[in-house]
Structure formats: C-alpha cells, structure tokens
C-alpha cells in the first residue's frame, strides 16, 4: 500500500526535474529546504531523521537535489522527504513537504483493536514493516 503523506503524494512519483522545479519554487519564496528520512511510515511519526542540516542561503535547486541524491544512495529503501521551512514571523513552520523517495515494497498497515473499559473499542494503526527493528524494515540488514 502506497503511503500518502505530504504534498503531491497522490500524484505519480516526481521526476528529478519536477523535484528541482518544486525546490526552485520554495527557494523563490524564501523558504529554507532540508532533507529528512525515516523507515517508520506511521502517519503519527513526525520526527524523521535529518540528513545534514537545513540549507539556508541557497539560490538554486542543484544544491538541495545534490543532498537528495546523496541520501538516496545511502538510504535507498527509506522514505525521504524534502521540507521547506518558512522563517517569516507568524509562520515559522514548514510550508511545503513532499516525499521524494520510497521503498520498493510498502506492505501497508494493519488495523488494531483494543477493548477499553465498558466494551469501548479503541482503534489504532500499525505498519507491517514496523514489526521489524529500525534499519531492517524494508531491506534485509546488510
């Protein structure tokens, strides 16, 4: 099951040219881009790992794309996303975030049910991949 998080996630995979156009748009708005990756696809997992520091003072997409490519080489079977941070007062948050790399095989999520007091049913999501330890979720440990 293909996970859909962030912008453009219902579209077909973006090509590198399309990604750099999006980065160019973010940079033209004055947003600082950063690259993050994870192998825990749960939608509530908001703390992805940083690939290097956020990149400030960039003018061209080539610099960000270079980091994306380096991250893809190092983590080919991880989710990788680009964040664009707006530092303007009042926003001070991510304005754009989209996935640029995903594992070849995404097994999806199972619905978990929990009985609460008084026959209350609580529902939760857990990913099949998440059963394995981090680092081995989408590819055999090397």
């Amino acid at each position, binding site marked *: 099951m293909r996970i859909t998080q962030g912008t453009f996630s219902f579209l077909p995979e973006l090509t590198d040219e399309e990604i750099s156009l999006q980065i160019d748009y973010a940079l033209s708005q004055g947003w600082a881009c950063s690259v993050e990756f994870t192998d825990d696809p749960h939608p509530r997992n908001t703390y992805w790992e940083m690939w*290097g520091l956020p*990149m400030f*003072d*960039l*003018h*061209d*997409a*080539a*610099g*960000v794309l*270079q*980091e994306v490519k380096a991250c893809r080489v190092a983590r080919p079977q991880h989710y990788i996303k680009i964040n664009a941070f707006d530092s303007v007062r009042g926003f001070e948050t991510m304005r754009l975030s989209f996935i640029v790399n995903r594992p070849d095989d995404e097994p999806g999520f199972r619905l978990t049910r929990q009985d609460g007091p008084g026959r209350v049913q609580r529902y939760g999501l857990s990913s099949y991949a998440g059963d394995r330890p981090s680092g081995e979720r989408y590819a055999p440990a090397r």
Partner: protein
Amino acid sequence: MNCAQLPDVDLAALYRDSGIGDVLAELDRDLVGLAPVKTRIREVAAHLLVERARDSLGLAGGAPTLHMCFSGNPGTGKTTVALRMAEVLHRLGYVRRNHLVSVTRDDLVGQYIGHTAPKTREVLKRAMGGVLFIDEAYYLYRPENERDYGQEAIEILLQTMENQRDDLVVILAGYAARMEVFFESNPGFRSRIAHHITFPDYDGGELLDIAERMLATMHYRFDADSRRAFADYLALRSRQPNFANARSVRNALDRSRLRQANRLFATAMQGGAPIDAAALTLIAAADVRASRVFAEPLAASNGIPASSHATRAALAPPG
C-alpha cells in the same frame, strides 16, 4: 548524419535575439582597457551562441567548461570583472541565476578535523546555479604546513568543478606570481580551468580615464589644470614601489578630496565668499600637487620644492 539535410541557422538573427550585443557593448563602455579580458568574453559569447545554433540542429557538443582564473597585478580589476561575470554569463544564458558568491580561504577551510568538508560543501551549495568567486585563491594551499586543511577544501572543490560543471562556474583570482606557485603545487587545478586570463597593467591614459570615471560617480570633476597635475602625479607614482594601478588611483583621489575639503574650509574660515556647486565639485590642481609624491627627491626636477612632508614620506609608503 547527413549534414546536407539539416536546415540552415541564421546566426546573425540568433545574435540579435539573444541581446548579447548589449552585454558586450556595456562591458566595453564600463571597463577601461582590459583588452584580453574583453576578447575572452567575446570568444565565450560567440561560442555559446554557436553552441545554441548547433543545439537547434541536434549537433549537441556538451556545455563548455567556463571555470576561469584571473591573474594580474594589484588593482587591475580582477574582482570588478569577476563581479560582473555572473551577470554576463547569466545574460549569455550559461548560468541559471545571476548570483555570485564571493569567498576567501576563511569561508572554505575549517578550524579542526572534520570541519572543512561540510563547510566547503555548504559554500558550494550556496553558489550552485551561479558563480563561485574565490579571491586570493593561493591562500587555500599552504605548502609549509602539510596538515593544513586547505588541501581537503581543494579536493572537494576539484571534485565539484568536474562533476557539476552545469551547475557552477568557479572563478579564481590572485596575483600572477603566487597563482603560478599555487598551480604548480596543484596540477589538477590548472587542467580543470579552461580559461586563464591575465589582467595587464593599465597605461597612463587608461589610469587617467579611470580617475575621471571614479570622480564622475562621486560627483567631482577635474579642470584642465588639475587633469594635467593628475597625469603628472600618475607618471611619478607608477614608477614608485607598491603601485597598485586603479586602487592607487582611488586612494590618490580620496586624499585629493580630503585636501579639497580642507582648502574650502580654510578659505571659508578666512572670510571667503560663499561657495557654489562648481567649487564644491572641483578638484583643483593644488589639491593634487600637494601630494607627497611630488615632494620626493624623484620629483625635485619638476621645480616643486620639497616640504616637511619629505620626512614623513620616508617613514610611510608613498601616497
């Protein structure tokens, strides 16, 4: 491929549409002298145009490398030209963005082990799509210290210059003799830089022209007398040590402005008439001739008496 079947390309029309003519005319107008530099820019422009024409016929030859090295004596306009280079290359359509990142050793080389690589990469990323200008590039390499981190920065630079030629133009600048030493110890650098441009010294007429332009931008002017005085000044000054071409001209003009202000002030204090705009903008011959350069023994034959400045001149560099 049968070339006879391909359509013709009107190079003259391409030239008109691209606006390259304006760029070159502007350079000619704004920069005094510097014939080899202008020739090289013209060559690059022609080449990029021809490449575009070839592209339209599917005769792709790959983008040319435009990494450059500017070498020349102090004050010959290396930095000025480099700053304009980003704009020129952008208008020629070679770089995507009209921006230039100007760095020196401090911005590239770190202070401890493991600090240099991220620092250099960050600078390179910032310069992507435009021009990276490394002033005084020979400081990157310190032969006397073999553990110097400069070597690491050089390696990353070389790698990026080779692999990301489409994204970045690197311009090195420095004094000719020291750049020569730098390239001898880093042969990889010399071969990766396609254009070695030497900036010649300006001659007297060009220096005077530069002086007039500097004055015009600062809303000052010479009259006939002071122009002659300044030409005399340049003739004397250029024979002295530490002459730094246009930079010396700028310094001399700055000092003349101080003397002009002092003269106007002194006149006013002695109850002179109110001064008008013409007097405020004029650098008089006396303002120029008061320079220490005229007071030195070299200038004694000019008939200007040596003053008490002579003792100070012996201690300070000539001005």
